């Protein structure tokens, strides 16, 4: 488990980057937290710097879009999905559990309470 921070460190519409076995981006979409691999699968760019639109993030370099729930790209230029990770809360502490297999649809970590 990777400690991300206090919930208040990740405001709605924002993202933070943490280091797991690879860099991981954690997004707050209207109180639901999602975690995906931070590096765009198309070319080296940090998705935590990207534009959040609903449940998708647009890569800041070439505008590849990834669904935060599945990690799947919505179309070119990215061809392969990013890995998704489970977000886990312990009180106000946010953690990422980076053990979910690639392409697995994950349920958002709910910011409203303790979710395991």
């Amino acid at each position: 488990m990777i400690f991300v921070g206090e919930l208040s460190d990740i405001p709605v519409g924002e993202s933070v980057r943490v280091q797991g076995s690879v860099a991981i981006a954690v997004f707050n979409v209207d109180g639901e937290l999602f975690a995906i691999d931070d590096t765009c699968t198309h070319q080296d760019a940090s998705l935590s710097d990207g534009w959040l639109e609903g449940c998708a993030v647009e890569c800041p370099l070439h505008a590849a879009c990834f669904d935060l729930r599945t990690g799947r790209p919505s179309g070119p230029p990215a061809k392969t999905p990013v890995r998704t990770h489970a977000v886990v809360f312990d009180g106000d502490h946010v953690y990422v559990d980076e053990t979910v297999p690639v392409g697995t649809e994950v349920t958002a970590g709910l910011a409203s309470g303790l979710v395991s």
Partner: protein
Amino acid sequence: MRDVVVVGASLAGLATVRALRDQGFEGRIVVVGEEKHAPYDRPPLSKEYLGGTASEDEIGLTGPDDAGLDVEWRLGRTATALDGPGRVVTLDDGERLTADAVVLATGARARTLPGGNPQGVHTLRTLDDARALRADLLPGRRLVVVGAGFIGAEVASTAAGLGLAVDIVEAAAVPLGRALGPEMGTACGSLHEANGVRLHRAVGVAGLSGDPRVTGVRLDDGRELPADVVVVGIGAAPNVEWLDGSGLDLDDGVVTDARGCTNLPGVVAVGDCANSHRDYTGDRLRLEHWTNALQQPAVAAAALLGAEHALPSHHAVPYFWSDQYGHRIQFAGHRAAGGSVRVEEGDPAASAGAGFLALFLDSSGAPVGVLGVDRPRPFGRWRRELAKRV
């Protein structure tokens, strides 16, 4: 519409094919490509591929998802003539392809120095160019890059990283001045010297020395820079000469409207060869940018199919990026005549290496462009802000 011929098998051509299929076209598609290679991505040629961190497989543009595209490829073949009104494309081996629609995606080619060039002198546009250059970029060699534009700057950056001694010769007083203006061009150009690459400004090339292999670059101020390898990066010219006599309007490329439509029905042009009206600037621009080659085809395909296709609004803002010396340079919008620059973050004069964000204002003070060095997040915000102008 049953038959489409796409001339050009790079990003814009492939993106057109994908868009036609995405938008429901089920007819025959023939794609003509001058190179023998399947479509590949060009931006890494001066960076990851040249530096040896990306393979040819990795820069390929087609993937498993393209298996259903059902394309008849004519690779290693050149289109030599177009009968515009009849929509007949003639290839170099005499084959004549008659179609209901023709997509012109022939791109641009690297400009070269006049005269014959000795061995060791390269341009960089194609995969074959990059293969040849890569084999020549050996540690300890002396590289002279002619032209401090984006290709020249990226090659210099990659070569310096490979352990070559690098000089750049730039005819203008300020590198990237036409795109970025004096202040920001100077700021981005300062990355060279900060990384041990010598930049010679305001000096032209008088000629090349060496026979059969290059030994130096003679400058018009009388100096000669020793060179084992030379890369000429002095811009590109659209591949449209073959369209003379086709009935198409040509003016620094194929003239089109905002959707890529030419003056002839059923003929569209996309990518580097298209000089298209841009809603963002209100005039025609030929954009040699990757993003344009990716996005313009969806609109042109819709026009051929008689449909509408709206891109996200921020895609209407011209955009390009460059990676140099570990820094990411991004630009969106344009630089207006009589405009000015306002720095929002960082200090370009102190050190481009620390990154900065600057806005380009028009003469009334309204933002029309944004430049970011290592500032992807605020850059993305401004790119969208600029799109509201359209």
